[in-house]
């Protein structure tokens, strides 16, 4: 996958907006200026933001799209005949098309707007899970899943008695397709796995996993939170049944996220939340629901944020996901080499199948101490369990420090990280 992502082939559909020139030279500096937050000092040092896997910064264009919308076109959607409501509805609904093209879905109505990836997985667990699963049915997960892809299934397990089957990872942090294969039984109904691990950066062989799922008459949910910002994603190419991601990790606003859900499956799913805008008719005796996607968007949605997400997708698409992938993979290779040279440092997750995330520990220095010392030098990394406690337990560590790259990071950022890590060594010598 990493190789595929790095190839210069133009992935984007031949559509003006998404045209990508894929020139050979990537100038992260050229994009840095789009992100006002990057231009500041932290404790008197220039900010080096390497916490993109937790959340990405927002380009001026996204903020402007939101402000412009609120300045010019804002109104509640769907229910109004007046001009502002028409404009707001049109702009909101148009983002479905933007998202569809971005992930190469077949239909706009397969795109559900939700609050976060967490919300999306809870929706699937509650709506699809409670409808189609019964006691004894099995869901396959892997050891490296984010809590968002564990806890909703545990809650479902505790409520209806399904079984969770966990595929272990290799010491390098890979999920081997043989191990996934071995996890299937006749009761397997769903495989729910990350596309890219937020803790280790591992790119999972999701196309093969989905194929296996379908061969076993099971469905596949892909948690794409860490994939969509790092590489082109093609849900139809993958044949994913559900694909989820959050807007805020894709340079978009908080409060916006996508659940892609195949039309035939969506049609059979009962609503998750009840309220306005998802009903066809309500009486105290009987209520009927709208067709998807609206059935799953109860109440006033995050209208402005969805407009912002549309802008973020336009932004990354204009740069081109292939170029971003190549750039980040270069950074990853460079950082890996530099970090390897620090003798007290251990990279956690050494598979070559990685996207712009690098986790590590240091002898004698706890990740939180690393985080604090780096912060005092302007370098923002994350330290902790990365919402992947079962993975940490599996690895026998309490936490890691994690640097994760965005399209605006540079080799100079990596150099600053390395210099800051030397200070950690010095203090904990």
């Amino acid at each position, binding site marked *: 996958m990493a190789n595929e992502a790095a190839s210069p082939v133009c992935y984007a559909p031949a559509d003006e907006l998404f045209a990508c020139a894929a020139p050979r030279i990537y100038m992260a500096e050229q994009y840095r200026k789009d992100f006002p937050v990057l231009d500041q000092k932290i404790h008197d040092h220039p900010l080096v933001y390497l916490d993109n896997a937790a959340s990405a910064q927002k380009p001026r264009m996204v903020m402007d799209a939101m402000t412009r919308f609120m300045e010019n076109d804002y109104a509640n959607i769907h229910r109004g005949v007046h001009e502002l409501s028409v404009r707001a509805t049109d702009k909101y609904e148009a983002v479905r098309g933007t998202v569809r093209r971005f992930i190469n879905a077949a239909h706009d109505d397969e795109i559900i707007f939700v609050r976060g990836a967490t919300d999306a997985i809870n929706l699937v667990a509650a709506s699809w899970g409670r409808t189609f699963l019964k006691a004894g049915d099995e869901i396959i997960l892997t050891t490296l899943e984010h809590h968002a892809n564990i806890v909703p299934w545990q809650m479902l397990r505790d409520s209806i008695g399904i079984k969770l089957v966990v595929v272990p990872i290799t010491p390098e942090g890979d999920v081997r397709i043989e191990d996934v294969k071995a996890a299937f039984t006749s009761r397997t109904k769903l495989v729910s796995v990350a596309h890219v691990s937020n803790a280790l950066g591992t790119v999972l062989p999701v196309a093969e996993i989905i194929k296996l799922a379908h061969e076993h008459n099971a469905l596949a949910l892909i948690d794409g939170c860490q994939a969509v910002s790092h590489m082109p994603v093609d849900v139809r190419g993958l044949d994913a049944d559900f694909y989820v991601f959050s807007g805020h990790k894709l340079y978009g606003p908080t409060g916006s996220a996508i659940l892609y859900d195949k039309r035939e499956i969506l049609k059979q799913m009962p609503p998750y939340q009840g309220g306005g805008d998802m009903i066809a008719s309500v009486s105290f005796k009987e209520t009927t629901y709208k067709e998807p996607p609206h059935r799953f968007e109860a109440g006033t949605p995050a209208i402005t944020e969805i407009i912002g997400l549309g802008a973020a997708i336009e932004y990354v698409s204009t740069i081109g996901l292939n170029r971003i992938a190549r750039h980040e993979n270069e950074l990853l290779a460079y950082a890996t080499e530099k970090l390897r040279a620090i003798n007290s440092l251990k990279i956690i997750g050494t598979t070559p199948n990685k996207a712009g995330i690098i986790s590590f520990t240091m002898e004698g*220095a706890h990740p*939180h101490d690393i985080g*604090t010392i780096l912060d005092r030098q302007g370098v923002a990394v994350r*330290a902790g*369990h990365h919402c992947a*406690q079962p993975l940490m337990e599996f690895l026998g560590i309490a936490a890691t420090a994690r640097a994760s790259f965005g399209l605006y990071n540079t080799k100079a950022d990596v150099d600053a990280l390395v210099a800051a890590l030397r*200070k950690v060594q010095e203090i904990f010598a």
Partner: protein
Amino acid sequence: MTNAALDTDLRDLYQDLILDHGKHPRNFRIAKNANHEALGHNPLCGDRLMLYVTVDDDNVVQDVAFQGSGCAISMASASMMTDMLKGKTLAEVGALFDYMHGACTGETVTPAGLAEDDVDRIKALAGVRHYPMRVKCATLAWHTLQAALKNEKKVSTE
């Protein structure tokens, strides 16, 4: 920030005393016969420590021990605390807690009646007050102590 200023700044938190206790925690063992114990947990960092306290009939701390894992600050704080507590009455422990809490959150509490040695150690820990995200690392052991003495089995700081 110059390199020297940075060093001073970081050394304020990572003082030698802290680094030493962090690396070589004292009283780091299980004490099965303790008459008070509690598990402290900081979900943010994943720091965890099990604290064992033995208090005699005269309300004097006879033994304190702990085990756990965490950052330099939380381990050092626990280690230094165990060192300080032995031989103190519960009333003295209370005064120490109050002083510690005030020192870490930036309040000014006068160390009236505390041993000079204890005050120095707590001042070393109080470097965290300029690191808001780390205050809980320094206070975890102390909150766990309170829980143990109140016979609460678990405490979680957030």
